[in-house]
């Protein structure tokens, strides 16, 4: 039994690692030709916070609610095991505090955690605020959902950074070594199966990573600071796990040595050795590492006292420990300072958090000749997107569509288009265009903000409409034949047609757009050779 409990900790760590690797693998493979064996939206579907809030805000029944319900049911039985075992962000924070203790443990004596803080109620406040907004029809889950934060940061910052570094490193190596055949084959293989053909880049990736780094830094201040005090997903799970079936049983404990309290990453154990089930993430540290073996996790009936079955720590073994157990931790029996208001340091931390998250996105990309109209100014949404108002409420900004987009045209929308629509996908027609034979973005959207269209439907979906700028377009402005736009137009009938006319004394083919045929894929604007302003621009049909 004792061995079994120790092993459970290893199992938990293994499950956490697996969860992170699974998610990373899924995000990495969210690209053409979607070869992953699990849906890229899987982790969002099992995220009750994102699913419930989006459903309430949008008054729809999302398919993910079913999966979320399973998670909630599991939480009623097991407590917040999702946070302790599955949540990839939680796993990352655990890993980080383990690293920290490994390094700091060399220099510093262990600090004792204070009693459970009132600060933990902040997460409920956040949750209720988000829920109130959802009732009012505004979906505000996207900035703070932990799964989204993880995926978004990974897709927008970490993946491009890793992929880009390896890619440019390989290219430098190839250049330096004169392109040997074996290295070229290796590079080609890597590009096909591991890297991207061209490294994607995303605007706002700096701001997006800041969110993530902020959470990581906070976890250095206090273990799992985010999960204890701020996480709204944790709050939802806490609400249903106030009295889970699997509960900690420390009735046999007489010494109250405080080891478990120091071990507890969630600070869920009170000075009197009772605990807060809704704060407990069932990491099982207290059960497995209790020096006296008096702490355990058992399934209890929701009523009455009788235990069903459970996990018990090394029961009463090595009684010689009992005498010395208090020593490494100092004042074991003395009760800790009771719950107090916010410490000034905590206030500072909250301020810092606010500061970090409110830094506006101002990172402008340097361009030799800046066009008057930037790519995202088109305001074009992905093909199959719901009507604008509905779209920005439904979208949880997970970044799946932008990650999967083969041309990198989808970008997080800048804040200047209004904070309500920030970071929702918008087409940057200077970076790419919408590929005609592709409907990947709709197939990876977890909330249906982008509808899953068939190829045929997508090819007829009007994203926007193209219009010529006669002041810039070569045939109109200079009387030179060009027709690059017509060449690239993917519509079988060609939405760009031309007529012959005399401009500046020359007979030229003057292109024009057939509004009924144009689907607004923007390849014409993307491929127009005129710099820096294009001879053809794509706008939303509503703006036409």
């Amino acid at each position, binding site marked *: 039994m004792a061995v079994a409990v120790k092993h459970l900790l290893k199992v938990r760590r293994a499950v956490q690692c697996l969860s992170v690797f699974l998610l990373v693998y899924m995000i990495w493979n969210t690209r053409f030709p979607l070869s992953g064996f699990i849906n890229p939206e899987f982790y969002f579907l099992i995220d009750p916070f994102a699913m419930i809030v989006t459903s309430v805000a949008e008054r729809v029944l999302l398919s993910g609610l079913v999966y979320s319900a399973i998670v909630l049911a599991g939480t009623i039985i097991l407590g917040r095991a999702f946070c302790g075992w599955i949540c990839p962000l939680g796993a990352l924070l655990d890993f980080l505090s383990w690293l920290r203790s490994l390094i700091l443990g060399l220099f510093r004596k262990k600090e004792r955690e204070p009693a459970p803080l009132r600060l933990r109620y902040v997460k409920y406040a956040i949750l209720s605020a988000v829920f109130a907004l959802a009732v009012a029809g505004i979906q505000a889950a996207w900035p703070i959902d932990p799964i989204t934060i993880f995926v978004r940061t990974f897709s927008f910052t970490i993946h491009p950074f890793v992929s880009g570094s390896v890619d440019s490193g390989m290219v430098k190596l190839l250049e330096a070594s004169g392109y040997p055949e074996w290295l070229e084959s290796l590079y080609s293989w890597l590009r096909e199966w591991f890297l991207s*053909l061209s490294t994607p880049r995303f605007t706002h990736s700096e701001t997006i990573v800041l969110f993530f780094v902020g959470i990581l830094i906070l976890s250095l201040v206090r273990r799992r600071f985010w999960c204890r005090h701020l996480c709204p997903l944790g709050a939802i799970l806490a609400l249903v796990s106030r009295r889970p079936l699997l509960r900690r049983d420390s009735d046999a404990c007489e010494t109250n040595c405080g080891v478990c309290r120091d071990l507890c990453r969630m600070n869920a154990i009170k000075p009197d050795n009772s605990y807060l089930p809704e704060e407990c993430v069932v990491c099982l540290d207290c059960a497995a590492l209790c020096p006296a073996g008096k702490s355990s996790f058992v399934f209890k009936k929701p009523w009455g006292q009788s235990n069903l079955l459970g996990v018990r720590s090394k029961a009463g073994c090595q009684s010689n420990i009992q005498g010395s157990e208090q020593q490494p931790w100092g004042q074991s029996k003395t009760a800790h300072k009771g719950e107090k208001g916010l410490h000034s340091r905590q206030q500072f931390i909250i301020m810092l958090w606010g500061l970090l998250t409110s830094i506006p996105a101002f990172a402008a990309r340097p361009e030799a000749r800046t066009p008057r109209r930037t790519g995202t100014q088109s305001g074009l949404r992905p093909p199959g997107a719901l009507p604008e108002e509905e779209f920005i409420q439904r979208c949880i900004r997970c970044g799946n569509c932008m990650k999967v987009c083969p041309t990198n045209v989808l970008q997080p929308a800048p804040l200047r288009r209004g904070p309500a629509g920030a970071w929702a996908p918008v087409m940057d027609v200077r970076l790419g265009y919408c590929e005609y*034979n592709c409907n990947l973005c709709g197939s990876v959207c977890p909330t249906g903000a982008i509808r899953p269209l068939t190829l045929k439907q997508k090819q007829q979906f009007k994203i926007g409409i193209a219009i010529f700028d006669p002041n810039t377009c070569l045939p109109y402005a200079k009387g030179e034949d060009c027709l690059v736009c017509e060449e690239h137009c993917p519509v079988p009938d060609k939405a760009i047609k031309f007529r012959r006319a005399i401009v500046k004394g020359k007979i030229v*083919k003057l292109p024009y757009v057939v509004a009924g045929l144009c689907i607004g894929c923007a390849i014409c604007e993307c491929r127009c*050779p005129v710099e820096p302003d294009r001879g053809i621009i794509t706008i939303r049909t509503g703006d036409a």
Partner: protein
Amino acid sequence: MMRLLKNISDRITTRISGSPATSRREFLGALAAALGAAALARSSVSPSRAEAAQKLPPRKKRAVKTPCDLAVARGSSPAAMTRKAIEALGGMGQFVRPGDTVVIKPNIGWNRTPEYAATTNPEIVAALVKLCLAAGAKRVKVFDRTCNEAGMCYANSGISDAAKKAGASVFHVIDSKFLPGMFPAGSAMKSWPVYADAVQCDCLINVPVAKHHSRTGLTLSMKNLMGVCGGNRGMIHINIDEKLADLTGFFNPELTVIDAYRILLAHGPSGGRLRDVKPTKIVIAGTDPVLADAYAATLFGMKPRDVGAVRVGEERGLGSADITRSKIRTVTA
């Protein structure tokens, strides 16, 4: 950004010169800021590699004597027609020597499946790869700089799979391999980035598909060479006939094989409508790119010299557009 960098470097120099005013904390802060700034600057100061590297001289064509000027194969199997056409020219051994590095340049420009005739027929590419390897080629490279997204074009055109199966090394173009080509003085192209592999190979086989094209009338072998050009290719569309002749003279392909198994009659070069596709079931092969294009033009009911590039190519002496006086051999597979 520059002010920030200067500030940081000032701080670091004061530190190094031993000014007692700088604390450790300040120094560490400056160091962290410098690292951050370096990371930010990384994206903005990457120099264009093409400018830093060497230039490429025009490619020299290997002189080959063929029994006829042009071979036209008719039949029902693209692979068999290709083999017959090459046989009529005297066999692949004429063009490929043992140990050669061969580049086969098909049209993989569009994200379309083969039946739309927007990309070269994969069976023709595969047949050529096999012929080259049988003739003793050390390595056969197949690539194209695509117009649509490259991964999808390679996959959906069927060329990537077919050529790999036949034994070719199929890869996507690497940006750093586009080097400035030295076009002869007076060329319309002046200097333009071209793909090094397509210039530095022992044998270049150009395998276009015959299609309609609004700007040039038709897109054939000369136009297909735009696929090994880098840069803002749309600009080649200005004065395109002269530029295509420049490209043909620069790359000098040993062999031109035109896929006319299916031809795209309208709404080219990307197509997308089966109504515009005509199954002509012809493969044209020859050493003279202008003549091959001239013959292909007749399949569309056009006079060869109505295609601008063919006319200019003939004027420049790159080949002949006179299909009546050339020795054309028709074979059936």
